[in-house]
């Protein structure tokens, strides 16, 4: 797909950016959401691997801001504007938020995937960042990578093969 050049990896509950050349990747998204932002003019791509919808539930201790939708998005925007992105140019794409196992019953945490997706959308709306495309939900895992030159989001899954957004 893309030759192995300057790959920036984003771990679980982690975020990062890549500029001018290279790709940014996160692997094995299940109920987590891979949220990406892109500024075409300066070829800057950012990605967050969001695990939970809201930091409200975080217990005391150090807050990992990349882990929650409500804190990861502001941080990603901050990081990208610091590198010269314009907030009005930012566009979003996202993938993940699956429900890996289907249960007829089960508590709220069983629905964590869809809740993560909803939360990401809510905060994108609040920041007035248009969501250009998404591949979310269903019951399978995804690996995603964004090419910072084209802003294309590549999605790989075991069941559905490859996709481009």
């Amino acid at each position, binding site marked *: 797909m893309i030759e192995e050049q300057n790959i920036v990896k984003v771990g679980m509950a982690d975020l990062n950016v890549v500029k001018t050349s290279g790709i940014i990747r996160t*692997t094995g*998204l*299940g109920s987590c959401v891979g949220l990406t932002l892109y500024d075409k003019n300066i070829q800057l791509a950012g990605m967050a691997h969001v695990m939970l919808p809201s930091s409200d539930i*975080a217990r005391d201790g150090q807050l990992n801001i990349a882990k929650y939708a409500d804190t990861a998005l502001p941080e990603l925007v901050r990081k990208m504007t610091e590198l010269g992105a314009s907030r009005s140019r930012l566009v979003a794409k996202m993938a993940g938020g699956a429900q*890996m196992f289907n249960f007829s*019953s089960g508590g709220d945490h*069983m629905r964590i995937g869809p809740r993560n997706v909803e939360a990401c959308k809510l905060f994108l709306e609040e920041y007035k960042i248009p969501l250009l495309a998404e591949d979310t939900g269903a019951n399978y895992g995804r*690996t995603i990578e964004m090419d910072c030159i084209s802003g294309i989001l590549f999605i790989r*899954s075991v069941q559905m093969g490859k996709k481009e957004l």
Partner: protein
Amino acid sequence: MNLFGNLEGFKMDVLKEVGNIGAGNAATALSQLLDKPIDMAVPKVQILPFEKIADKVGGPEQIVLAVFFRVEGEAPGNLFFILTPEAGKGLLHRLAGIEASDEEFFNEMEQSALSEIGNILAGSYLSSLADFTKLSMTPTVPGLAMDMAGAILNYGLIQFGEMGDDALLIDTTFLEGKEEVEGQFFLIPDPESFDKIFKSLGVPLTDD
């Protein structure tokens, strides 16, 4: 809060023994099903960052077959029975006489048979734990998935995600002969279950 600050070696040993008893029972059940001796490795108890947990089964993108159970009762948690897809086919063949289709994915009947095998093993794992700790622990209906290990295991870490970036994992590998083909049990107790387990086993709680 430091989730694991008080888990000194002694407590880790207690958790290892808990894993040992559960997995021992499951190994016996599997051995009876297969009519073949099944060994198991000594359980490992580890506190691992989320990132590292999928490495235990070959990395986040490794394709695995997993039967997942939410453990309900007095010491809740998450339980995974994880196999390679090949080991899953082997089990189907030997236990149910099903010659798995060549297709990449398991069909509905195969999935149902695999869930049932997982169910039997998880049931024996948990019932021995419940006997040992005198705490109620029952599995929910099994959920089955064949997918990237990262995506699957992540599902069992949500409770920990609310508290930190590490989880405690009791990991036991089954062995048949010299080959590690039979699969792995991952028990990830919810954070609040530790104290209950220790308490019921008479382990003094030194923390506040």
